Structure formats: structure tokens, C-alpha cells
């Protein structure tokens, strides 16, 4: 900041330190601003960086560990990822069929994202904009469904999908993931829609828009951060989820990454390099998605999600 101020006012000084000293008038304006900073958000720096640094170690060492094991040659005990090898990745990707798993997981994740968002958007709009007779009961059902453990419904769900002859088809997992994502997604989305003033929509009707057109043109663009949060939630969840795929998909070419990882762990003598490489493959898409949406996630939640 200081250097920039200097270049505009002071003549090109030979040394930067001298330049900073030579231009006291330009440094006076920022001073009052600094004074106005409020003490409540001014903890001493070490009180931020020290605990944060310690916690970061706890967070990052496991990540480092798995990357380290994935890239260092088998039998090496070096703590540095050098020399590097891609052997583990090649092995997992082809021999252990992670290429297929990856495709399946991606397909399930994207399909769940789309179905969850669309269905939750419709329901969320109804909850936010209408008063109807079964609304209270429906909301209660949504909340209660949070207590229903998907893991404990495995057997009846299995029977249902068997009756629909959907066992061993990705559709069964997509439906199951969507259903268990829906309640929370709908509650969140209806909260986002409530934050968009109804008068905006009404104005669009007056201008001749149908209800749907008004929604599409006026409301939908404003919902973007919320939809990104909900959609990525759905994607990450179904990408990560393990039990449904384990139960409903029996053949190897239908299975997903978490199931593949579990198989690697369950082997009699665990191939740690392969396991680590598989883990890195499992983590990559989610970490990338997460890096993009991280900021929206917090704003999305604070936009009235919990307060409804």
C-alpha cells in the first residue's frame, strides 16, 4: 500500500525504504481509518495464527499422508514425496477398475444433483409462497424424516428396489440418494425463496409474465448462491455415500468409488500405495467442487437457512 502511494506522489526514489520515509504527507490520510477499526474484531495476531496453525496441522497432515503414500514408490519410507511415481495411480485406475467406479460415481452424483435440485425447488417454492391445508403436516414430515436413518432402512429399501427390478442399476442409488437429500434441501430452498420479496414476482405478473415466467426471470437468478450450496451438497453427499451403493449394486462394473475404496481396505494384505492412490482419486472432485463453492456455502447457509 505504502509503495503504491509513493509511486504516484514522490519522484522515483532510489531505495524503497528511503521512498517510504520521504513521503510522510501521503501516509497521513490512512491513519484515521486505522484508528476507527473496532477492537472487537481485533484479537492479537498470535491468538489467531497460533491456534489456527495448530489446527491446520491436524487437518493437513492426514491429507499430506495420503498424497505421500500415493506418489512414493512401494517400500519407501521417505517422508518427502520424492522420487515420485504414478505406478499406484495406474494400477488403481485400470487393474482395480477405478476408471469405471469414477464414471459411475460421477453419473450418480450429477443425476442426484439435478433431481434433488429440481424436485426441491418445486416443493420449496410451494412451501415459501403458498398457504395450503397440509403445509404444516408436510413441514413436520420433512423435519421428522431427518431422524430416519437411511442405514436402518436398507432391508425394506432393498425389497422395494427388488420389486421394481432395479437392483444393480444405478437408478436405485440415484433415487435413494435423492430421497434422503430432499427434506433438508427443500427446507433450505424454501428459506432462500422466502428471502426474495414476493412483490418482485407480483410486479412481473403485472407486466404480463405467467407465474412460471416470473419465477424463472425474477426469482431464479437471485437463488443462485443458494442453489449452488444445495446442489453441491447433494453432489458431495451422493459422491461420498457408501451404504446404498454397497447394498443395491452387486456387480463390479456398477460399483462406486467408496465401495472400491472399501474393497481395497478389506483385502487380506492391504496395498497401502493403491489405497492411497484410490483415496486421492476419491478426494479430487470433491475438493475441487468444495474449493469453488466454499465461499457460497457460508453465505448460502446464513441467508436465512436456519432461521427459516
Amino acid at each position, binding site marked *: 500500500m505504502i509503495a503504491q502511494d509513493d509511486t504516484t506522489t514522490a519522484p522515483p526514489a532510489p531505495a524503497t525504504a528511503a521512498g517510504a520515509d520521504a513521503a510522510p504527507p501521503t501516509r497521513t490520510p490512512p491513519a484515521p481509518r486505522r484508528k476507527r477499526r473496532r477492537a472487537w474484531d481485533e484479537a492479537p*495476531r498470535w491468538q489467531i495464527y497460533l491456534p489456527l496453525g495448530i489446527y491446520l496441522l491436524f487437518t493437513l497432515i492426514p491429507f499430506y499422508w495420503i498424497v505421500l503414500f500415493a506418489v512414493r514408490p512401494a517400500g519407501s519410507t521417505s517422508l518427502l514425496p520424492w522420487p515420485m511415481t504414478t505406478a499406484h495411480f495406474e494400477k488403481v485406475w485400470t487393474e482395480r477398475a477405478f476408471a469405471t467406479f469414477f464414471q459411475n460415481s460421477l453419473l450418480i452424483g450429477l443425476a442426484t444433483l439435478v433431481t434433488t435440485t429440481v424436485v426441491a425447488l418445486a416443493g420449496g417454492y410451494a412451501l415459501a409462497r403458498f398457504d395450503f391445508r397440509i403445509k404444516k403436516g408436510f413441514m413436520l414430515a420433512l423435519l421428522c424424516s431427518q431422524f430416519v436413518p437411511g442405514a436402518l432402512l436398507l432391508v425394506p429399501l432393498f425389497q422395494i428396489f427388488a420389486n421394481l427390478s432395479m437392483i444393480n442399476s444405478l437408478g436405485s442409488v440415484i433415487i435413494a440418494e435423492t*430421497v434422503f437429500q430432499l427434506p433438508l434441501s427443500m427446507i433450505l430452498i424454501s428459506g432462500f425463496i422466502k428471502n426474495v420479496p414476493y412483490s418482485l414476482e407480483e410486479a412481473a405478473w403485472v407486466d*404480463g409474465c405467467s407465474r412460471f415466467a416470473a419465477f424463472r426471470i425474477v426469482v431464479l437468478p437471485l437463488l443462485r448462491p443458494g442453489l449452488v450450496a444445495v446442489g453441491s451438497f447433494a453432489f458431495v453427499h451422493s459422491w461420498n455415500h457408501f451404504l446404498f451403493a454397497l447394498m443395491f449394486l452387486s456387480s463390479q462394473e456398477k460399483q462406486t468409488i467408496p465401495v472400491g475404496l472399501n474393497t481395497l481396505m478389506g483385502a487380506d494384505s492391504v496395498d497401502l500405495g493403491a489405497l492411497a492412490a484410490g483415496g486421492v482419486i476419491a478426494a479430487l472432485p470433491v*475438493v475441487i467442487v468444495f474449493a469453488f463453492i466454499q465461499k457460497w456455502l457460508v453465505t448460502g447457509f446464513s441467508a436465512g437457512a*436456519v432461521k427459516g
Partner: protein
Amino acid sequence: MATAVTPPPKAPATSETPQAPARRRRTGVAPRRLPYLLIAPAALLMLGFIAYPVLSVFYYSLQHYNPTKPWRNGFAGFDNFTRIFTDDPHFWGTLTFSLKWVAVEVTLQLLFGLALALIVNQTFVGRAVGRALVFSPWAVSGVLTSAIWVLLYNSQTGITRYLADMGLGEYGTSWLSDTSTVFSAVVVADLWRGVPFFAILILADLQSVPKDLYEAAEVDGAGRIRQFAHITLPHLKDAIILSTLLRAVWEFNNVDLLYTLTGGGPAGETTTLPLYIANTSVDAHNFGYASALTTVAFVILLFCSMVYLRLSKFGGESK
């Protein structure tokens, strides 16, 4: 917030603009039926794949039902339930472990998550990167968490080996297969993934604390600790209650991590009730008995949630 929940204006209300009602009628759905149409897909999905399975669990809980022993199938009355409470060598043990697991995990996750949220809510250089890094394990699955900690806890090449190199502990310790260390080992692994959940939710709620409250407190001479106790904490109360409850239910039900990390072992030491149920229904095919166990788990969960909401006076004073 709730101001927008008004029924859609009827056509006569906007009759000054003759075009509008005509256009709206073109959608072909009477506004009265529209909300039902909109929630129909969600409602049908939830009826078919949540409500119906739940009811069938209740039904099977009163049956002897085991596909591998069809000659014994039939109405059981409360046999399954009496067996759970009087004659099941695993039920009480797994239930106790579940409660211990949930209590320890949720408490620690909340404390660390709260602290973390308060830290990354400050303004400091590198905040965006710090937040992203600290939150990142949230996106990691239970199975992947297991994979990571299997690598870390491995007795040959895990972290213990390097600790032993530095003179801490002994070579060849395997924290996951020793009954005295396995609990702390899985708790730490699950904390690693669970803390960011609380941190994200609490951070989101921290954004909505009115800033002028702090300024006023400052003028009145309140220090940072008193500001936290009298402004921040009361404001966060509802969010904390709701997120701890959701998390407790989630931790109780979620079997991914324990299933893949320890499989409930060693010696059944880390078997939660849901894991025991899954084993009973999937491995032993005893669906009737597993359904009765599931019903009991439901009731316990609902009862605990009610008590918790009542005791914590959720939504009480703040509204």
C-alpha cells in the same frame, strides 16, 4: 421473513390490468391446486421410499422373518422386543457405546467447531485460504476418512513408526487393534471430519450478529470475553441447539466410518447399535429381529431428541 407467505392474489385483485389475469390463466393450473402439484413429486418420493419402508420396519418388527429360515416365519407378537431387552447379549453394550460415541463426538466437535468459527471470523491476512483449508475435511467421505486413518494408524508405516523414530511410543503399535486405544483412535478420526460441519454452520450464523451490538458493548466497556458471553453466545444459541441435535442424530445413525475403519472391532469394542443392526439384518439375514431393533433405535432417538429440545428451550427466549 414470513411476510411473503400470502396466498396469491385472486384475479379480480389485479383487474386494473386486463392483460395479467388472462395470461396467468394460460398456465392452466388453478392457484389453489398449484402448491399440491408442486410438492407432489417430493411427497410421492418420500412416501414411497421413506414412509413405506418405515412402516414395513414396524410391521416386520412383529414378525419372525428370516429368508434363510422360512419355516420359522410368521407372526411373532412382541417376542422380538422381549428378546432385545432380556436375552440379547449385544443390545445393551452396543447401545451404551452408541450413546458414549455420540456424546463424546458431538461435544468435542461443537467445542472445536465453535473455537474454529470464532477464529476464522476474525479479519486477518490469509483468511480465505485459511477457511478453505480448515473446512476441507467436511467434504471428505466416511470411507475416505477411514482410508486416510488406516494409512496413518498403520503399525508398519503409519505415524506411530515416525513417532517411535523420535523416541515417542513403541514400534509396531496398532492403535486400531488395541482395545485400550481404539476408542480414542476412532474419535480423533471422526473429529477430523466432523469439526468443519459445526465450524461452517456457526460461522454462517456469526455473520448475522448485528455489529452495532458489539460497538455498544465496547462503549459500555465490556471486554472481548464478556462480549462473547453476552452477545455472541446468546445469538448462536438456536443454531447451536439445532446443529448439535442434527449432528447427534447423524452421528448415531451413520455407520460408514466405523464400518470401514474398524468393522465394529476389535472384539465388538466399537460396535454402535446401528452397526449391530446392519450386521444382524445383512449378515445374519434376521430381518424380523433387525426390524425390532430398528424400531427400538427410532424410539430412543425420538425420545432423546424431544427431551433435548425441551431441556434446551429451543426457540424460547430469543423469539
